[in-house]
C-alpha cells in the first residue's frame, strides 16, 4: 500500500498546476451564449497545450495518459475551478466510441475537430418514455435509397443548440428483441428536420434541450459499429466515463466543503454542536469519496475491472452534494429561501445529481445484481 505519488506523477501534477495557474480562463460569463464561447476558447487552449483528449491514444491526437494521470488531471481541474471545455461530451463519449468502433474514414473525419472544439457533439440517448430503461427507446431509423430516415424525440440533450453532431441511438429493427434492434448513428444536427427546444429546469436555466426529429437524414457511412449493434456501442460510451471522474468529483466536493466552512464562520454557527457534527460528517464523506475513488482506480489498474468501491462513487457523490448544499441552506436560515441567495442555485441543482448519469435507484440495482450477486430484479 502506497498512497504517495511517484516522482513522475508528481512532476506531471506540478506541471499541470503551473500551467493552470498561468492559463486559467476565469469564470464563465453570465450570459449563456457568451459562456459557451468562453468554454470553446478554453477547449482550444487545452488543445494547443496538448491537454484535450488527454486519455485518448497518441495516434488519435491524445496523450495516452495513464489512469493515475487522468485522475490527477480531473483533480487539478476541479481544484482550480476550471470550467468544463465546450466539447466535453465529444471528448468523453463520442471520441472514445469512434476510436473503439469506428472505421478509418470515420476516425479521420471526426476525431480531430472533437479535440479542437471546432465541432461540438451532443448525445441523443434518453427519450421521454425511455429514461432508466434506455433500450426501450422508440426513435426509429428506416433505410431508404442508401440513407437512413430518422423520426422520434430525444430529451436531456446538453448543448444540442450548439452541436454539429449527435450521438444517436435509434431502432432499426422493429421485430428484433429490444436490445438487438438498435443502431448507433452520428447525426448531422445542421438540418431543418432536427428541431431543438430548450428545456427549462427547476433552477430557471436551460442546460438541456429536447430534440424533435422528423424524417432527418443520416448517410449510411455514419453508422458506427454496424447495424443492430447499437446497444453494445452505447454501453461502451457509458463505460467511457472518465476514469478520473471519481477523483475529480471528490476534489470538487473538497472545495465546496471549504466554502461551506467559510459560510459557517461568516454566519457565526461554528460552535453550534449540531452544525459541528454535520460539518464533520460531511468532511468524513468527502474524504471517503476521495479514498473510494482511488481504491477503485487501483482495482481497475490491477484487474482491468472496476472494483465494488468504484460502482458506488457516483451514488455517493450525488447524496453528498445534496446533503452539503442542504446544510448550507440550513445555515442561511431565512436567507435560504431567497432566490438570489448564495448556495440557492447549487442547492436546487443538486436535486439532479441523484438522477443524471444513472439514478441512485438504478445504481443500487447494479450494485445488488452485479456486485452482490442478488437475483435479477425483474
Amino acid at each position, binding site marked *: 500500500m502506497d498512497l504517495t505519488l511517484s516522482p513522475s506523477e508528481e512532476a506531471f501534477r506540478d506541471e499541470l498546476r503551473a500551467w493552470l495557474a498561468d492559463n486559467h480562463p476565469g469564470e464563465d460569463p453570465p450570459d449563456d451564449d457568451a459562456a459557451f464561447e468562453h468554454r470553446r476558447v478554453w477547449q482550444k487552449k487545452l488543445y494547443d497545450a496538448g491537454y484535450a483528449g488527454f486519455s485518448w491514444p497518441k495516434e488519435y491526437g491524445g496523450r495516452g495518459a495513464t489512469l493515475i494521470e487522468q485522475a490527477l488531471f480531473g483533480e487539478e481541474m476541479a481544484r482550480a475551478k476550471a470550467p468544463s471545455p465546450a466539447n466535453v461530451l465529444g471528448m468523453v463519449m463520442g471520441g472514445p466510441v469512434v476510436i473503439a468502433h469506428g472505421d478509418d474514414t470515420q476516425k479521420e473525419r471526426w476525431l480531430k475537430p472533437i479535440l479542437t472544439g471546432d465541432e461540438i457533439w451532443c448525445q441523443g440517448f434518453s427519450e421521454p418514455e425511455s429514461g432508466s430503461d434506455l433500450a426501450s427507446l422508440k426513435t426509429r431509423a428506416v433505410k431508404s435509397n442508401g440513407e437512413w430516415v430518422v423520426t422520434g424525440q430525444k430529451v436531456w440533450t446538453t448543448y444540442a443548440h450548439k452541436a454539429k453532431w449527435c450521438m444517436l441511438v435509434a431502432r432499426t429493427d422493429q421485430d428484433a428483441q429490444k436490445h438487438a434492434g438498435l443502431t448507433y448513428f452520428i447525426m448531422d444536427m445542421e438540418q431543418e428536420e432536427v428541431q431543438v427546444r430548450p428545456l427549462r429546469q427547476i433552477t430557471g436555466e436551460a442546460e438541456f434541450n429536447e430534440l424533435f426529429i422528423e424524417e432527418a437524414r443520416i448517410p449510411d457511412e455514419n453508422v458506427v459499429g454496424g447495424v443492430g449493434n447499437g446497444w453494445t456501442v452505447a454501453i461502451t460510451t457509458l463505460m467511457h466515463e472518465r476514469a478520473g471522474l471519481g477523483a475529480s468529483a471528490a476534489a470538487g466536493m473538497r472545495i465546496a466543503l471549504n466554502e461551506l466552512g467559510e459560510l459557517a464562520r461568516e454566519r457565526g454557527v461554528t460552535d453550534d454542536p449540531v452544525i459541528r457534527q454535520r460539518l464533520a460528517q460531511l468532511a468524513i464523506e468527502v474524504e471517503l469519496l476521495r479514498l473510494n475513488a482511488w481504491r477503485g482506480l487501483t482495482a481497475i489498474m490491477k484487474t482491468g475491472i472496476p472494483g465494488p468501491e468504484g460502482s458506488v462513487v457516483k451514488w455517493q457523490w450525488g447524496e453528498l452534494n445534496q446533503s452539503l448544499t442542504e446544510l448550507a441552506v440550513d445555515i442561511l436560515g431565512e436567507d435560504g429561501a431567497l432566490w438570489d441567495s448564495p448556495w440557492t442555485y447549487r442547492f436546487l441543482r443538486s436535486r439532479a445529481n441523484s438522477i443524471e448519469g444513472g439514478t441512485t435507484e438504478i445504481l443500487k440495482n447494479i*450494485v445488488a445484481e452485479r456486485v452482490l450477486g442478488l437475483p435479477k430484479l425483474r
Partner: protein
Amino acid sequence: MNFDFSDDQQAIKRTAKDLLAARFTLDRVRELAEGRRYDETAWTELCELGWPGIFVSEDNGGQGLGIVELVILMEELGYALAPVPFLSTASAGLALELAGSDEQRERWLPGISSGELRATAGLESNGEARLVPDADAAELIVLLSRDGGRVLERSQAEVEPLETIDATRHFARVRGEGGEPLEGDTSAALDRIVTAIAAELTGVCQRTMEMAVEYARDRKQFGRPIGAYQAVAHRCAQMLLETEGARSASYYAGWTADAEPESMPQAASMAKAYASDAGWRVTASALQVHGGIGFTWEHDLHFFLKRAKADGILFGSAGSHRERVAELSGLAAEPAPA
C-alpha cells in the same frame, strides 16, 4: 499510487482468514460466548505466530511490521468474530510502543508480544475507565487519555467486571490511583487503537453483509427470493456502500500511521466515526433482512450486532470522533465571532 495490500500483506490476510475460519466456526464462537470464555488454545497459537506484537519492534520481541498489518489482522478477527483477548493486548502494546519510555518498552513489550504478559488499555475520563476489555484478567492496565497516560499493576487497580451485551469478549470498569506515568504521545497511541477498532468493525460489516446477501438469495416469500425485491436489494447495496467506506477509511488511517503520521489524527477519528456508525447500521440492517429468525438467540447474527455496538462505543463514540474531526479539519475550529 497503489491503494491495495502488497504481496506480503495479502499473504498475511489469507493466512489469517484461513486460520481463523478453521479455529472459529460459528458453532465454536457460540459455545465460547455462551460459556463466557476465550479459546486459550487458539490464543496461544496466535501468540506463537506473533500476532500481539505484529507492530512491535523486533528489539522488543515483536514482528517489526506496521499498523497496516495490524489493520489486516483486526479486520479478519472481526470477520471471524474470534473470542480472543487480542484487542486488549494490542491496545496495551500500542500504548507502550507509542507513549512508553525506552525502559518501559523494554520491560513490558516482550511479554506482551509473546502473550506471556496479559495487558490491556482503556480510555480514562473523570478518574475512571468505564469500559476496558479484559481488565479483570490483566496483570497490567494502561489508562489513556489524549493528555497522558499511566500504567497500573493489577494490584493498584480497582477492577469491577461488567456484564455487557458483547458476550464474545469480557469487559470491566477500572479505577485506580497512581501507577507509572507514560510520558510519550498517548494521542498517537489512541489514534492507532481506534484505527484497529475501525478495521475490526469493517470485518464485522463484511461478514454480516455476506450473511444478509446469502439469506436474501435463499429465502423465498411470495414465490421468489426476497433479494429480488428492491426494498431488500437496496438495503443490501447500502450495506456494501457503508462496508466499503469503513474499509477505505480504516486502510487509509492504517497507512497514514506508517507513512504519513501528520495525517493520522484526523484519518483515525474519521475512520472510527464512520466505522462505528457503519458497524451498527450494517449489522442492524442484516438483522432486518433476516426477519424474525434474525431476532432469535438461536441465530448467530446477534453476536456480531453486539460486538459492533461495543466496538462503536469503545475508545470514543462516532459523535465524539466527529467532534474531533470538526476541530482538526479546521472547518469549525475557530470560535464563532461574538
